[in-house]
C-alpha cells in the first residue's frame, strides 16, 4: 500500500509538513516493497486557490491510498474522500517516524476537515 507523507524536505528524514495542499514535498512510501520516492509539490504550493484539491489529485494519480499530514482543509478532505484516500495526523514527527507509527496503527485518522487556508 502506498502512503504519501507531506514533508518539508525531499527526504524520509524530513519533518512532516503540517500543510497538505501547500506541502513542500510528498514522500511516497510503498509499505509492501519498501520503495520510497519524493514528489516536488512546487506547482500546487504556489496555486492561487484550491491547492488541496490539486494535491489530492496528485497523490491519487501516484496510486496512494493514505496520506499523513498535519491537517486537511475542507476541499482537500472531500477530494481525498472522493478518491477513497484516508488521512492521518503526523504532526511533530519526521516522515520516518510517521511511517513507523502508521505501520503499527498508532496514528489518528483525520475524520473531519479543518479550517481553510491554514497553510
Amino acid at each position, binding site marked *: 500500500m502506498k502512503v504519501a507523507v507531506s514533508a518539508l524536505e525531499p527526504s524520509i528524514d524530513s519533518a512532516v509538513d503540517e500543510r497538505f495542499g501547500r506541502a513542500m514535498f510528498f514522500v511516497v512510501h510503498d509499505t509492501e516493497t519498501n520503495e520510497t520516492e519524493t514528489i516536488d509539490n512546487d506547482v500546487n504550493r504556489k496555486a492561487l*486557490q484550491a491547492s488541496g*484539491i*490539486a494535491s*489530492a*489529485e496528485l497523490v*491519487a494519480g501516484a496510486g496512494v491510498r493514505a496520506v499523513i499530514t498535519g491537517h486537511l482543509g475542507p476541499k482537500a478532505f472531500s*477530494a481525498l474522500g*472522493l478518491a477513497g484516500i484516508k488521512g492521518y495526523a503526523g504532526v511533530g514527527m519526521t516522515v520516518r517516524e510517521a511511517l513507523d507509527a502508521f505501520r503499527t496503527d498508532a496514528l489518528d485518522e483525520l475524520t473531519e476537515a479543518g479550517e481553510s487556508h491554514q497553510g
Partner: protein
Amino acid sequence: MASHDMLPGRRLTIAVASGKGGTGKTLVATNLAVAIARTGVPTTLVDCDVEAPNDALFLPPDAPETREVTVPLATVDQSACTSCGACRDACAYGAIRLLGGTVVFAELCNGCGLCATVCPTSAISEAPRPVGEVEWGSVPLGVAGPGGVKMVTGRLEIGDVKATNVIRAARRRARVLSRSVDILDAPPGVACSAVAATHGADMLVLVTEPTQFGLHDLDLAVRLGKELRIPIGVVINRDGAGGTDLDAYLAGAGVPILARIPFDRSIAEAYADGGLVLDAHPDAPGWFDAIWDGIAQMTVEAE
C-alpha cells in the same frame, strides 16, 4: 430643481459605492432613489450587495416577483466518461480533477463550457446550478411618488461564491424594467463584486466618513472609479465625527464633494427604525437634491 429636465429620452445609471463597509451606502442609495422619484422621475433601485441585501427593508415592494439565478455547471455522465483527462487539462480554473473518476468542483466551475466541447465521448453537459435569486416589485407610491421606485434585490445563496452572477442578473432585471434612472447599491470593497456592480455606470457616488479607515478605503474606491473611467462624486457621511480631513485628499484627487450629511442622532434613529432620513430630518431633502444636482451636472459634462 432643474436636473430632471434633461432626462426625457435618456437613461442614467448611478452606482453608489464605498471602499469601506458601514459608511452609509444603503442610507444614500435608498434616500436618493426616493428623492429622485419624488421629483417625478421613474427610478429603479438595484440592491447589488447580494451577500447582505437590505435596501428592501427600507423600501419594501408590494407583491414582489422572484426569479432564480442559475449558473451552468459541468456535469459528467460517468457511464460515458473514459477518464481520459481532456476536460481536466482544458479547464483553466482547475475545477475538474481525476479522483477515481472525473470530478467537477462546483465552486470552482465558471460555467464556460469548454470541457463539454473537448470531451471526445460527449460525456459532459451543462446543468443549471441555482446560486441565488432576484426579487423585484414596486414601492408604494405613497412613499416614492409620483415617479415611483421599482425595488430590485439580488440575493446570493448563503455559502455560495457566485456573487457576480447574481449582481449581473439583478442589473439585467433593471434594464428590462427600463426606467429613467437606475441606482445601483454596490457591495463594499473594490473586488470583483464591487466591479460587477459599478462598471458601465454613468456616475459613481462614493460614500465615505471622516475617519482614517474611511480615507484609506475611499482612496481605493477612487482608484477603482478612475480605472473604470466613471465620473466620481463623494458624499461625506457622519460629517463632524472622526476628525480626518478628507477635503485635502479629495482636492488632490480632483473629486468633488456632492454633499455632507452631518453626524446627527436623529439620522441614526430614523435609519435604525427602518425609516427614510428624507422624512426624518428637515435638512435631508436639501442634501439629496444637492447630490442629484451634482450628478446631473457631472454626467452632462461627461458627454
